[in-house]
């Protein structure tokens, strides 16, 4: 595997790109921390499922845009490389990183213990995560809040949608425990967009989703007339940039870069632009997810 990655770097690159990126690379403060092959190449290939506004999505010109993309740009500046986004669905992101097609995955992926360890007990699978954002959950309801929901406890007795396998689903299950006999009717869907469609069809009374996404829906869905976010951000969990375990050097460089953009303020600027300040972290970490 590691051999393969290296081989990959050696082969793909040919002269022209190298010279072009070199100049900019030398001026970047953290360029020397990157693995040699990436420095030579001047490009970090990022896998991302680009269908999760506002974190990452295709803009009108079919170019990736969103929080993750802008954070990557900021990281690129301090690392002196270009972050190149490649679109694929979740499964392919992980597979592509494992076989060297991409270097990292940056796709609003929540950092969890299980993902760090993989399916085996010896923790050989999985990946390392460089945490760069915190997404709490939020409650999204129909405009006008017909069920008068303000806190999680108000959800008891309602139909609530959440995306499968996310922290939001866990949150829903925990709330359920507190409801007693007045149970929540959960609606677990595969994509966040499906949950939100359920809110629109009134099948669901509320959706628990990532805070920035909820905010984006409040502002944009149906010209901002369909939904609203109620209450505060709940229980934020870290997002991580996934890096193959065989590439600790890259992981550490990324961590340093995240810390650098937090320190120099470009991180805050990006979040401000996307109204996602609530997800800001103060300190770069690795594998902070539980």
């Amino acid at each position, binding site marked *: 595997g590691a051999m*393969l990655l290296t*081989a*990959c770097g050696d*082969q*793909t690159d040919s002269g022209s790109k190298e010279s072009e990126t070199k100049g900019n690379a030398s001026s970047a403060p953290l360029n020397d921390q990157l693995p040699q092959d990436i420095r030579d190449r001047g490009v970090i290939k990022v896998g991302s499922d*680009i*269908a*999760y*506004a506002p974190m990452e*999505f*295709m*803009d*009108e010109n*079919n170019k990736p845009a969103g929080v993750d993309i802008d954070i990557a740009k900021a990281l690129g500046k301090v690392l002196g490389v270009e972050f190149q986004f*490649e*679109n*694929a*669905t979740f*499964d*392919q992101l992980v*597979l*592509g990183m*494992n*076989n*060297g*097609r991409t270097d990292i995955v940056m796709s609003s992926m929540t950092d969890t213990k299980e993902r760090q360890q993989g399916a085996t007990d010896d923790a050989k699978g999985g990946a390392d995560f460089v945490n760069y954002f915190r997404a709490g959950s939020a409650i999204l309801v129909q405009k006008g809040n017909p069920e008068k929901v303000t806190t999680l406890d108000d959800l008891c007795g309602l139909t609530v949608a959440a995306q499968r396998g996310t922290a939001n689903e866990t949150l829903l299950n925990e709330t359920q425990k507190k409801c007693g006999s007045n149970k929540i009717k959960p609606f677990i869907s595969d994509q966040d*967009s*499906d949950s*939100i*469609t359920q809110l*629109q*069809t009134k099948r669901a009374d509320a959706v628990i989703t990532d805070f920035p996404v909820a905010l*984006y*829906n409040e502002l*944009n*869905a*149906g010209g901002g007339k369909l939904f609203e976010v109620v209450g505060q951000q709940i229980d934020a969990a870290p997002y991580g940039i996934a890096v193959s375990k065989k590439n600790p050097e890259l992981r550490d460089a990324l961590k340093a870069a995240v810390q650098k953009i937090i320190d120099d303020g470009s991180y805050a600027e990006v979040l401000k632009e996307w109204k996602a300040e609530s997800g800001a972290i103060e300190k770069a970490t690795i594998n902070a997810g539980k």
Partner: protein
Amino acid sequence: MTDPLDKAPADVPPDGGQGDSPRKDTAAHPGPIKAVPVRHYGRWIGAVVVLGLLALLVRAFADAQIQWSVVGEQITNGTFAWGAWETLKITVYSMVIGVVLGAILAVMRLSPNPVLSSVAWGYIWFFRGTPVLVQILLWFNLSLVFAYLDLGFIYKDEMNQVMTPFVAALLALGLNEAAYMAEICRAGIQSVDSGQTEAAHALGMKGGKTMRRIVLPQAMRVIIPPTGNEFINMLKTSSLAFAIGYGELFLRGREFGSRTLAIMEGYIVISLWYLALTTVFSIGQYYLERYYARGSSRSLPPTPLQRLRKQLSSFRVQSNVGGVKV
């Protein structure tokens, strides 16, 4: 007892449309039969009911919580048109691989050679048995298994270089389709009367030639309709390639939906595109079927235009009685 009619065979003029042949006695010159056709009141009622239901459905959809203006705007959007083109491309290429390889597999499977038939059987079993998405992912990530594509001296490159999303999707869809096409071709081949094979053998034709010249052309009649199905199915199945980022129609719909949150509208736009593609294919299929129907019945089936004309006339109350009716 019979009327001992006595007619000269040659000088009875053919009875033309006028039905008035001067040389016959007056009792014996009917024109084309004029008859009141069976009145299909049920058809009229049925048609009205169907139209009524359709109107209701259209109204319900028009009133639904769907922003039709968005659909109207986006239908001409170049992004979707481009996606449709990519979909068309991968579909046609994959189907070509599927049909050719499928025909070969079908012949192999029916071969008395146990090696050939086992290989074909195993191929069909494996490729029909595993989900296409898994196959797509496997091809795209083949470097997990083979890091290099090494064809000896001719060619050697990193597998990830070779396996672009297009190549991976093409291989996965084409090879998978071949397994399905093999079964379809087998059914077609088996539907041809064994007397045909015997006649060909008796003329000294060998197995291969008999298959190509005699059996397959006759099998086409049975093969084409399900192949049309497969083709149209492939238009949609090819959308699984979005998993590896191949930018076809479905991916465009998804991207649009996730950006604008107009999920349903995005899906309606791509559905309209798919319908358009399907329509084009169906028309092609129709004429292909007509071509292979030659010789199978005494007259060719009518073209849609002829059919329409005939159907309209069947609504008319009085008509000249024409073609075969059963």
